[in-house]
């Protein structure tokens, strides 16, 4: 798995100063948006702007300092991008709070604090991502249990038709978001060991190398798990996410396009079957094709949320109404799944494209870390994390803008929701850890006289 000499010779710079500069810009986005919300709604800068901005800055500085010390070679773009998205999300949630008299923004700020704390902990405790490979099956089991938990009576709750929440005392969270991370680790650990068997055996049908029947086991298992999530928890989004994630990682590890074909066929078969059997899937497709027919109360108002979001985005146009000057509170639950509708309305197409590009940057940086990573496990984890962000963003923004049927996933870093925010901060910590490892100068061969005497070579880490 070692890379060609060219990369070995190229030494990455740490670029921590660049990260700090970008973080200042990210803070400006977050605090500026918060001030703009106050100006738009109440025509005055919020009174707590200093405290709020200070807290946000403190979180960001802590994250930066920890990265500087424990992951000095980590990618300098990821943290600022995430900070900007999180800050913008907080401001938009605050804006919706003002319209609807809720306190989601305060809770979200708490969750962000928890997220940053876990981000720091991950970086401090996990000094080498390859340690995670030991937990391949443990984390697989944990993911399965987490996915099953919402079905346990008394713990699981049905919110908006999807059985994806669990409650424990005053806390409630979506285990799917955490399972997402565990599954990436499991897939990477399993695939890095079995990739040769999955890649080499098989037969060629019509220019495409198809895998052997007996190797289909894992993909069939994953397919069944995804279908199970869909059928029993009626969670279309997570089901799609998990299966797509597995497919990407399988393809990357085996380098065989045949898996993509098998996977796509399985996906289409599953989707068709689900459409025929599951009424809530039919509803999603119908409201996607004919949103205006299901808008009124008389027709059940099934597409009210989608259509209101579309009206808002259309009204926002190129430049948007301005923060605090639109009516995003017309969209039910705009602070969670439909936060992009609120952004499209108040920040316009410009804000929309900016946010999509920020996500694009996260994905690009993840893939870049994967490309230069020296070990197979790290490569797979990075590509899996990047892929999961790309898929999640596509599924949720595509759903909100009526590109694809609505499936119901949170928008990473923007949407209100503790489990999602915390899980995504940990996701970024993992990406930073891998990129730090990948960008670190390669181990030097020490060839002094003393070493020559030894029969083994000592490898010194820089």
């Amino acid at each position, binding site marked *: 798995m070692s890379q060609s000499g060219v990369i070995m010779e190229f030494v990455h710079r740490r670029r921590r100063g660049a990260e700090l500069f970008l973080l200042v810009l990210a803070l400006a986005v977050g605090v500026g948006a918060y001030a703009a919300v106050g100006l738009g709604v109440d025509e005055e800068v919020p009174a707590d702007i200093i405290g709020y901005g200070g807290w946000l800055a403190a979180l960001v500085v802590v994250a930066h300092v920890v990265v500087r010390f424990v992951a000095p070679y980590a990618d300098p773009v990821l943290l600022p991008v995430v900070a900007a998205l999180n800050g913008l999300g907080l401001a938009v949630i605050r804006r919706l709070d003002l319209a609807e008299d809720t306190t989601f923004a305060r809770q979200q700020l708490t969750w962000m604090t928890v997220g940053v704390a876990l981000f720091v902990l991950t970086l401090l405790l996990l000094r080498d991502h390859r340690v995670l490979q030991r937990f391949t099956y443990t984390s697989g089991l944990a993911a399965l249990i987490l996915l099953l938990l919402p079905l346990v009576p008394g713990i699981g709750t049905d919110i908006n038709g999807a059985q994806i929440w669990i409650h424990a005392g005053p806390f409630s969270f979506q285990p799917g978001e955490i399972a997402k991370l565990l599954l990436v680790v499991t897939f990477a650990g399993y695939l890095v060991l079995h990739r040769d068997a999955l890649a080499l055996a098989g037969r060629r049908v019509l220019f495409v190398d198809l895998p052997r029947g007996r190797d289909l086991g894992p993909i069939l298992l994953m397919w069944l798990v995804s279908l199970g999530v869909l059928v029993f928890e009626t969670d279309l989004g997570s089901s799609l996410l998990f299966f797509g994630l597995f497919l990407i990682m399988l393809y*990357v590890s085996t380098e065989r396009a045949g898996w993509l074909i098998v996977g796509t066929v399985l996906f289409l078969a599953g989707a068709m079957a689900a459409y025929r059997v599951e009424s809530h899937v039919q509803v999603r497709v119908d409201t996607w094709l004919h949103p205006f027919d299901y808008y009124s109360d008389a027709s059940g108002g099934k597409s009210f949320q989608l259509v209101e979001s579309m*009206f808002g*985005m*259309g*009204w926002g146009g*190129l430049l948007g109404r301005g923060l605090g000057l639109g009516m995003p509170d017309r969209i039910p639950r705009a602070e969670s799944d439909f936060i992009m509708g609120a952004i499209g309305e108040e920040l316009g197409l410009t804000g929309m494209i900016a946010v*999509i590009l920020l996500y694009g940057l996260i994905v690009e940086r993840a893939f870049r870390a994967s*490309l230069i990573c020296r070990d197979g496990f790290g490569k797979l984890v990075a590509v899996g994390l990047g892929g999961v962000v*790309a898929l999640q963003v596509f599924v949720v923004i595509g759903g909100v803008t009526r*590109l694809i049927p609505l499936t119901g996933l949170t928008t990473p870093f923007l949407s209100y929701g503790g489990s999602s925010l915390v899980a995504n901060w940990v996701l970024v910590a993992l990406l930073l850890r891998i990129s730090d490892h990948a960008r670190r100068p390669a181990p030097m061969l020490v060839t002094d006289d003393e070493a020559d005497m030894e029969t083994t070579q000592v490898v010194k880490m820089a």
Partner: protein
Amino acid sequence: MNKPIRTISIFCMLLFIALMVNATYLQYWQSDALDKNPLNRRIIQEAFSRERGAILVDGKPVAVSNESDDEYKWQRTYPLPYKYAPVTGWFSYYSQTGVEQSQNDVLSGDDSRLFVTRLVDLVNGNQTKGGRVSLTIDPDAQNAAFDGLSALGPDVQGAVVALEPTTGKILAMVSLPTYDPNKLASHDFSSVSQTYDQLNEDPAKPLLNRAIQTTLPPGSTFKLVTAAAAIESGNWDASSQVPAGATYQLPETRGDTGLIDNEGRYQCDPKRISFETAMEWSCNTTFAQLAIEVGAEGMYHQAEAFGFNDHYLDDLGPQAESAFPAGTNKPQTGQTGFGQFDVRATPLQMAMVAAGIANGGTVMKPYLVDEVQSADLQTLDKTEPSELSRAVSPTTANELTKLMVATVNEGTASPAAMDGIEVAGKTGTAQSGVEGKPPYAWFVSFAPADDPQVAVAVMIESVPGKDTSEIAGGALGGPIAKAVMEAVIR
């Protein structure tokens, strides 16, 4: 593993490009369509909280936004609700009609002509104010029309339209029964929908603007069009002797169904009478024969030249099209000669027939919006009168005027006669075609005959409490037309 990672990168890039293209499609290309979607409450809610421009009649508002202390900040108010409702329409949370709808862009401030104003407001941090719309209505004529029609009784159904013949300006437009648009503009939305449902289900149809949205058989007033076609053909003029008779059997018919009489007006009995007499006493037998002589084709073209089968009013909608049937056979053509069979006209259309004759044969395009002004009273646009069609030659118009003057001076239209001013007019009493339903009374006229300043059409659909024998265009419509003409001239 790097090759598949690159492939996946490109795949993800395509996903993101798809998202951006789709967002652009939604927020740029589809933006207008979404804004105009009737389900879209954002636009109307925003319009509600903006200072909407006033609708003015002779400098005085008939619709104006006053400050209110609720969440919408502005309350649309109609100072003269019943009289002007058919013109202004209403501006409710759920719907708009009339000028409120047709001039919505100006009134709300979104019109491109208000761009500079909007820019200045934006720079100064002021809230955008809507522009003002000034109507062509003459308040005196509108009062005369409204009072005259209302005086017929509490539940009268009818309409009055007055035009300025030389320009096409609508000087008066009244429709009864009417309604109070203030109730529909209220911010108490449940009472608004209740009021709306009630008005909408009322069998008397108060929400209908009968001046432009009701078509009825125009009856004898349509004889003006028949006479126009006959004179245009070159075979007749105002001093000709025309065929008449106590009865006339339509060609290709036998017995009572095809037999036309004059409802007891003995002046029509001779075989041939003067054209003036035929018009004065509205001889059905004459105009049936003239129509047949002109032919189906000729009648059709003449009717269309006056505006039948066409839309011509841009300032109010929806407008009902006045209809003249194509390809009629001989007995049907005979019936169209006195405005029966499938001939249907709006009061506005019949006012245009009178105005066209008054204006030397040229029909002007009717309009209601005179001026569009910005909130600070700058004139942004003034409607220029435009020709709709040349219905008849000036000579023919002159001959028709003579016939109409004679009808007022000597015949059925005498109730519209004025002291010292020559009036041209024509009555009509059209069979409704429904058993037991009283006929419709019509009256069209213009004055002064030598220098016309106003043309009027009065249509009375029903007057509860009056039976068939009392319904006559001259007796009911004549005095109203006279009052409106006097209001304009004096």
